[in-house]
């Protein structure tokens, strides 16, 4: 214990918050070990794909080979006659609603009429063995009339010529035609000729971001078990149990209370589990067969089974004075939403409202728009609309610095927001915003030593590594910087509250706290933090984490960097309520009049009178069991025409410095070092915070130099880990991390959501470093070898 981090930390912030000290080494500010760590290293942690039930069947989906086609007929006769097959279902067999969706219910649970993307589910089977199910799928005869896919911006903009993804009479989007959603932001004078005339220097660029995949390692999977009451118990890997239930129950024709969800082990998420995948299919098959049904996607099916990061095409124009002050920004951000809406409206909201980055720009004009198309559906992925914009505005800042002959870090610092700055939405940043300081921190870190192939040659450290493509010749080093702006929590008026239940009782002669929430632990370490909060607030040693399920109220989504803030905040509220109840028990029983009570080391302590009683003696056989909801401060929707509004809960900032070696002859890139600095408000668990920053930065590295789902005419060409590459340990460099802890006075413990910000600036910092090494423009990510060699 003594070796663990138990340092006292002080929060600094606008309102000079009460100092919070770590009373317990495994309380907040410490780095206790994960409660699920031992199970995970022993191979005993039950992931959703590990579930097993007696009499269990295997479910599987038949998927469309076409990106756009009319379904003329589906014949399941032959599949049904295959021995071992228990059910074959199409849309005709759905007992309830045929549609579902996160924000707009526009996605059929099983396709009917048309298929709108390559891989859309058309029919499902349940069988006694996965191979039986596969063979049954091959016997389902679907007759398609293939239609021309709507895949480009030009197609989407001209439905009269190229057609509609959703027929006008079926259209459910927020806008019209093939537009899912659009959002403008206009501030200051907007951007017009008069404003342009105020700038001495103008840079204009067009940028592209490819379609990135979350590529979580644990494939979509779960087990649906029919219950005696006619309901379904679903054991599932998801990011938000309650929103899954809200979408599943209507399709099954069941009231929500008949659909009970329990979180199974989740093998990563990164946004890819916000939408439903196999949930409805497993439940439909279980309902139909009366048997438990398990569905586990293969990697290939996983690529078709979840949404991706929106590919973006962006035009940015910045004007600045000769001394480097930004005068205006004009931006148009076009996102390909794919076949169904998913989270596109919220992604558009983020892309538009965060489009300017962490800079003060007096005059702004922005349009962000998401189209429907016959490309794969896109929705949530870590960074959520802010990643695409960050690549564009950070590239612009580099170009502006070059144009002005300024140091790129100094230009950023000159224009950086700080506490009190107005963003283009009119929202004032009312918490610390140390953007200039974060940039300085990464800049001040020592640089890695230069490549020395004369005295030390290890090809594993070079671009190309073990492919033995270079022994140092043709390799040029570059350094680049970037910083980003991300929001925390759900925005635009959404009340994404969290619920927590805390129970305190004596077990085995010790006070024990139990924390029960519906929070999806997807690997981020929320369960560790919940234990830390309970220990800190209740002065107990022992904390048990109840399995996450729908027996307790919603915890909202494990996304938007929000869970420690929101559900952590709910655990804090519930624990505080339990503590007050315990004090009241002592007051009524012993007539205490102290107002200086706290719980330390299992005892009730008065600052003036010392130890009053042990919690064990005070509680006796009584349990205190309280549930609390945590709501963040309210936000409002952005004005449709101007984008004005207090739309975001909290802002978060991360800066990166990337050092790369580029083999300029072969176009291979080795990221040598990727340094990050981030303000986290308060590091509740420093070990986990650093893990989040390094993990997020690495996903940004993937987008910078390798990750892209390639489509041709709407068809996915690389749905495998052979062809869709994510960074390996050889591709990933040392990642020094600098943490700042400037408290946000509005947040529990002053904390700031951590998970997403590092994914933003990592990508442009790396590409900036490649530009520095090569002198190339590189306006598109991922940067591929041919972009560097020009071949």
């Amino acid at each position, binding site marked *: 214990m003594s070796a663990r981090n138990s340092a006292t930390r002080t929060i600094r912030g606008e309102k000079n918050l009460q100092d919070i000290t770590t009373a317990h080494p495994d309380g907040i500010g410490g780095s206790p070990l994960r409660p699920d760590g031992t199970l*995970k290293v022993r191979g005993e942690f039950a992931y959703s*794909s590990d579930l097993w039930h007696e009499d269990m069947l295997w479910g599987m989906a038949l998927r469309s080979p076409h990106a756009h086609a009319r379904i003329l007929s589906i014949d399941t006769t032959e599949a049904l006659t295959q021995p071992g097959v228990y059910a074959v279902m199409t849309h005709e067999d759905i007992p309830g609603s045929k549609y579902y969706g996160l924000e707009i219910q526009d996605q059929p649970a099983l396709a009917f009429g048309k298929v709108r993307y390559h891989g859309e589910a058309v029919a499902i089977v349940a069988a006694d063995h996965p191979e039986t199910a596969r063979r049954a799928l091959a016997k389902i005869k679907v007759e398609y009339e293939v239609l021309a896919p709507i895949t480009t911006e030009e197609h989407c903009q001209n439905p009269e010529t190229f057609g509609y993804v959703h027929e006008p009479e079926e259209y459910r989007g927020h806008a019209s035609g093939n537009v899912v959603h659009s959002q403008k932001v206009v501030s200051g004078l907007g951007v017009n000729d008069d404003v342009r005339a105020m700038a001495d220097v103008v840079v204009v660029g067009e940028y592209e971001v490819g379609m990135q995949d979350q590529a979580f390692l644990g494939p979509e999977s779960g087990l649906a078990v029919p219950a005696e009451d006619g309901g379904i118990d679903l054991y599932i890997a998801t990011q938000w149990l309650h929103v899954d239930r809200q979408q599943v129950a209507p399709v099954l024709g069941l009231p929500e209370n008949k659909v009970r969800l329990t979180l199974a082990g989740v093998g990563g998420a990164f946004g890819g589990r916000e939408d439903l995948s196999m949930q409805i299919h497993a439940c439909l098959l279980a309902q139909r067969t009366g048997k438990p049904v398990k569905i586990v996607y293969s990697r290939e099916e996983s690529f078709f089974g979840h949404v991706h990061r929106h590919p973006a095409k962006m035009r940015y124009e910045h004007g600045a004075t000769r001394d480097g002050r930004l005068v205006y920004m004009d931006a148009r951000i076009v996102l390909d939403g794919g076949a169904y809406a998913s989270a596109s409206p919220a992604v558009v909201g983020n892309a538009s409202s965060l489009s300017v980055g962490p800079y003060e720009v007096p005059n702004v004009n922005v349009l962000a728009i998401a189209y429907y198309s016959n490309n794969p559906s896109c929705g949530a992925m870590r960074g959520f609309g802010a990643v695409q914009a960050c690549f564009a505005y950070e590239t612009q800042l580099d170009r502006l610095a070059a144009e002005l002959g300024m140091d790129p870090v100094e230009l950023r610092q000159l224009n950086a927001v700080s506490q009190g700055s107005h963003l283009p939405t009119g929202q004032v940043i009312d918490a610390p915003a140390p953007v200039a300081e974060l940039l300085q921190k990464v800049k001040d870190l020592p640089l890695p030593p230069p490549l020395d192939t004369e005295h030390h040659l290890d090809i594993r450290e070079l671009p190309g590594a073990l492919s033995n493509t270079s022994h140092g010749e043709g390799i040029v080093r570059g350094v680049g910087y970037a910083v980003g702006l991300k929001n925390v929590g759900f925005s635009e008026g959404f009340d994404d509250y969290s619920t927590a239940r805390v129970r305190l009782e004596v077990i085995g002669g010790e006070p024990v706290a139990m924390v029960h929430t519906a929070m999806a632990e997807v*690997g981020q370490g929320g369960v560790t933090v919940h234990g830390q909060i309970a220990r800190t607030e209740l002065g107990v040693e022992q904390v048990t984490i109840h399995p996450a399920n729908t027996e307790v109220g919603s915890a909202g989504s494990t996304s938007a960097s929000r869970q420690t803030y929101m559900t952590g905040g709910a655990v804090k509220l519930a624990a505080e309520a339990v503590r007050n109840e315990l004090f009241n028990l002592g007051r009524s029983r012993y007539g205490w009049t102290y107002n200086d009570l706290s719980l330390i080391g299992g005892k009730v302590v008065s600052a003036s009178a010392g130890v009053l009683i042990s919690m064990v003696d005070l509680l006796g056989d009584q349990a205190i069991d309280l549930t609390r909801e945590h709501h963040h401060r309210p936000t409002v929707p952005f004005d449709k025409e101007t984008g004005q509004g207090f739309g975001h809960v909290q802002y978060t900032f991360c800066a990166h410095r990337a050092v790369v070696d580029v083999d300029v002859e072969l176009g291979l890139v080795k990221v040598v070092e990727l340094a990050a600095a981030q303000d986290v408000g308060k590091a509740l668990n420093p070990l986990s915070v650093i893990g989040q920053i390094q993990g997020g930065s690495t996903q940004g590295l993937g987008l910078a130099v390798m990750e892209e789902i390639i489509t041709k005419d709407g068809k996915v060409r690389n749905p495998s880990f052979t062809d869709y590459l994510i960074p390996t340990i050889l591709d990933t460099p040392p990642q020094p991390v600098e943490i700042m802890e400037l408290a946000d006075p509005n947040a529990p413990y002053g904390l700031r959501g951590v998970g997403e910000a590092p994914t933003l600036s990592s990508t442009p910092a790396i590409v900036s470093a490649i530009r520095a090494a090569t002198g190339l423009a590189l306006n598109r990510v991922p940067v591929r070898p041919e972009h560097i060699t020009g071949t």
Partner: protein
Amino acid sequence: MRVTFNANGRPVEADDVWEGESLLFMLRERLGLPGSKNACEQGECGSCTVYLDGSPVCSCLVAAGQVQDREVRTVEGLADDENGLDPVQQAFIDAGAVQCGFCTPGLLVQTHDLLEREPQPSDSDIREALSGNLCRCTGYEKIMDAVRLASARKCSSNSSEVSQ
């Protein structure tokens, strides 16, 4: 078909194995050993890594029938019942190398093998040895820390054994 082999030091038998099944499927679905993970089923991710006769292999690429009469050791067989976790397992927990944990079983077997062969690997040795194991959560830094920690602990416990 029936397949009999040794799993984690114990003789096991799987019945009704379809010829197309992998070692991974047989371990997970027929023998109650779901610790080895299926994340790609084509040998790209390393999540299913097990020892086969002492060599690490992707169990998704080994046909179930190929292990007849052979020795398989999975993540479930790394911990010693008497001494608890293997130093590699403990180091992964202590260093924060486990987030979602889906890649962990494969990485543990691969790291275990590396440290058996090379007790004090350089950073480049570690990166080379683990380059077939994908992790999506950690950015690998904490995994590097874990391997260095396991190496240091194993070496210090070996040297203290020698000095005694």
